[in-house]
């Protein structure tokens, strides 16, 4: 038998189903973990039942038969819970969580990098669920051998007769869906008499062969309520016409969800729609979707194009300023205004709430707490805080490492906590909030805190610091993020190999973010990830040193002041300036990058606010604001951490985007290691790639080396 041609969009709709199902699985996981905390919450039970039902029903519709069959018994179990015949237990929650893992595997089967489905695990899960929910194994086996309609528990109430009219959307078949499966599912609820209505099928010549013209009249005798019947259509409800009426008595209590008048109107509309124009239904009207699902790759292309536009607009502005033509200038300014608005909009499109990333850690905490035999509660705050899609995508691993580390090393066993007067149930708090152009994501635990003496001893043992080194608390905590650093007495499956924390710092810094740690012995530890709101385009401040241009992120800049020869003389060789009575250290970019050009008589200090405090960067001139499209410098410059990227200016030259935090950390680190000649002077010797810096950032350097890496 030859395989039928698969419609080109069937895979596309399977893909859409996968995306929908992934979201439902995440929600199910959260709901299950919440239910574990509040077993009497009937609303949660209903949510779980509906989620499982949707996955089962829509899975079958889109050809995921194995997934649908596997989900069926879970759904039945939660139906038993819903009807008060089965108690929620940790065993049921754990079994369902394990089942979700297998459903996820079935969902991804055949896609790249998918984890394989474990048939033995699936069988064991189903067997345990059936045993727990008292689902008769023999009945299951009998059902498999003879697909006669059975009656699940949902149909066990008083039998009522329902009249159902179902007209699928015209594209149902194109989705690869099969309405017969819906009818089969209805048969599971009770005695069904169904009649397919073919009167809307147009003439052979006129008909669209892939469109569904058939609609159904059905009579169903069932003990299941209206909601259970509606649930059968849950996945197609938005695109179909559906009326469910209690037969005989339109004012019967069973018709309460949809008032009889509504049902009549719906039925009438069905009839009118057909008689007016056979085959044309109300859903032929244009859709007014409130949201759209767009492939991420299209979004990335869009943002890339906006980035290119911003670059071209900068060039236009530059040319317009040279033309000195009022009309050209007006057009250029209008283009600039529109480009700025477009950039803002495109960046907003990429913003996503961090909720889904946070929620998935409920499962991690639940599983780890069980494995480590600790009582841990995860609390979440600020889940609606939005971040750039790219940032969110890369945040999962660092947060996972931090949580695992807290669970394993930070949080004490229940008896130790009790001995020290703490609640036996520990808390891990995940929070997100805006702070200027950054988002702060914090992982806080109420565990034992960091033993800074132990960290220090370990750092000396590993030769990271000298025994005499004077370090602040934050400098000591920073050592935790050094490669291979761990104070754990034993390596566990969870952590202790000193790998995770290094990865945390690397990943966060690759996002142009920073990690801050604070800890109170016996009280707990808080790790804050400071992340940029966006990764693609930032508002920058363009500064010049000699022929070179640099960009400082505008969000971190405070003000600009002059640095005169007299100021320098007053500081006795220290790189410090007094700003309104406050001593502010500064870094001379010319010295830091070993640029050979001559400094002007009056230089400018750009003051910036960082986690380390206020600092200044000395430049020759401040050129103004610019929209900065961030371009990667490529692998060759990956080790150059004081530069977070490059951008192309309006005149076609390249400007390096500086990372103020890293520049200052570099200088502070040199100072701590005694390499700094003066307060916050940059490296004693030429910094790595200093020549390339100068060349890359210079006017005459937008040549091969620059363009090759930008």
């Amino acid at each position, binding site marked *: *038998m*030859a*395989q*039928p*041609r*698969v*419609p080109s969009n*069937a895979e596309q709709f399977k893909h859409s189903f996968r995306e929908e199902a992934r979201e439902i699985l995440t929600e199910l996981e959260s709901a299950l973990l919440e239910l574990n905390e509040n077993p009497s919450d009937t609303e949660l039970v209903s949510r779980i039942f509906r989620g499982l039902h949707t996955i089962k029903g829509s899975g079958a519709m889109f050809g995921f038969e194995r997934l649908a069959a596997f989900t069926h018994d879970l759904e039945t179990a939660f139906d038993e819970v819903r009807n008060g015949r089965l108690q929620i237990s940790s065993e049921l929650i754990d079994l369902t969580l394990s089942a979700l893992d297998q459903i996820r595997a079935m969902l991804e089967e055949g896609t790249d990098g998918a984890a394989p489905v474990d048939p033995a695990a699936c069988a064991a899960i189903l067997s345990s669920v059936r045993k727990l929910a008292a689902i008769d194994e023999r009945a299951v086996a009998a059902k498999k051998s003879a697909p006669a309609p059975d009656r699940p528990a949902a149909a066990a109430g008083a039998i009522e007769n329902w009249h159902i009219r179902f007209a699928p959307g015209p594209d149902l*078949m*194109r989705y*690869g869906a*099969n*309405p*017969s499966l819906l*009818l*089969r599912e209805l048969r599971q609820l009770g005695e069904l008499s*169904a*009649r*397919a209505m*073919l*009167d809307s*099928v*147009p*003439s*052979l*010549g006129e*008909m669209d*062969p*892939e*469109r*569904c*013209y*058939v609609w*159904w009249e*059905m009579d169903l005798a069932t003990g299941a309520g209206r909601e259970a019947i509606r649930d059968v259509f849950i996945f197609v409800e938005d695109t179909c016409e559906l009326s469910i009426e209690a037969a005989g008595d339109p004012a019967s209590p069973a018709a309460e969800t949809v008032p009889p008048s509504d049902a009549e109107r719906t039925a009438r509309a069905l009839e009118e729609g057909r008689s007016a124009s056979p085959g044309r239904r109300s859903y032929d009207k244009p859709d007014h979707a409130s949201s759209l699902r767009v492939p991420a790759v299209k979004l990335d292309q869009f943002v890339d194009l906006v980035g290119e536009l911003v670059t071209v607009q900068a060039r236009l502005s530059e040319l317009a300023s040279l033309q000195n033509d009022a009309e050209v200038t007006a057009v250029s300014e209008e283009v600039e205004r529109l480009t700025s608005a477009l950039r803002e909009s495109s960046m907003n499109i990429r913003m996503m709430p961090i909720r889904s990333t946070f929620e998935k850690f409920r499962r991690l905490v639940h599983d780890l707490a069980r494995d480590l035999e600790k009582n841990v509660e995860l609390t979440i705050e600020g889940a609606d805080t939005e971040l750039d899609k790219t940032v969110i995508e890369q945040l999962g691993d660092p947060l996972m490492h931090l949580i695992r580390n807290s669970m394993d090393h930070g949080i004490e066993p229940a008896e130790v906590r009790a001995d020290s007067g703490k609640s036996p149930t520990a808390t891990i708090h995940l929070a997100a909030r805006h702070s200027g152009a950054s988002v702060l994501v914090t992982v806080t635990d109420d565990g034992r805190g960091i033993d800074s003496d132990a960290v220090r001893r370990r750092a000396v043992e590993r030769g990271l610091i000298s025994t005499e080194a004077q370090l602040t608390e934050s400098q000591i905590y920073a050592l935790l993020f050094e490669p291979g650093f761990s104070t754990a007495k034993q390596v566990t499956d969870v952590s202790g190999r000193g790998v995770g924390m290094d990865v945390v710092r690397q990943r966060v810094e690759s996002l142009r973010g920073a990690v801050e740690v604070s800890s109170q012995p016996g009280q707990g530890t808080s790790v804050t990830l400071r992340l940029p709101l966006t990764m693609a385009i930032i508002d920058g401040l363009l500064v010049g040193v000699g022929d070179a241009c640099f960009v400082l992120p505008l969000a971190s800049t405070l003000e600009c002041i002059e640095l005169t020869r007299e100021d320098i003389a007053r500081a006795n060789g220290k790189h410090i300036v007094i700003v309104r009575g406050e001593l502010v250290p500064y870094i001379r970019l010319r010295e830091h990058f070993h640029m050979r050009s001559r400094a002007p008589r009056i230089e400018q200090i750009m003051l910036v606010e960082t986690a380390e405090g206020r600092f200044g960067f000395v430049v020759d001139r401040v050129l103004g604001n610019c929209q900065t499209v961030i371009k990667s410098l490529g692998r060759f410059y990956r080790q150059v951490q004081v530069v977070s990227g490059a951008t192309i200016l309006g005149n076609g030259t390249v400007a390096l985007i500086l990372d103020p935090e890293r520049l200052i950390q570099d200088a502070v680190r040199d100072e701590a290691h005694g390499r700094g000649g003066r307060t916050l002077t940059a490296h004693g010797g030429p910094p790595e790639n200093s020549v390339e810096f100068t060349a890359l950032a210079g006017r005459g350097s937008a040549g091969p080396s620059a363009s090759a890496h930008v």
Partner: protein
Amino acid sequence: MPVTLEKKDALTIIQLEGTIDVGGAAELKELLVQQLKSSAAVYVSLDAATGLDVTAVQLLWAAAREAQRVGVEFGFKGQTPEAVRSALVDAGIGEFPVPASTG
């Protein structure tokens, strides 16, 4: 959707094999339109079919009506396999196809 056409004078027998569904719907429509134009009698054999979805049912239904309209003999040959019959019953179509009207 493998199809075998058997032609004898003005009689055409269309043998459909495997699953007849939306994937081959456009092809089936084209075939039915052509044969109804060029034959005096068209018969469809579902002997080797393993499944039939709603789009196939619609097409065969519309073809039967079209045949009546243009005066071409149209019908089914052979036995409908059990799998096809039960799929039709599942879909609430029952005995198939018996056009209710000639359109």
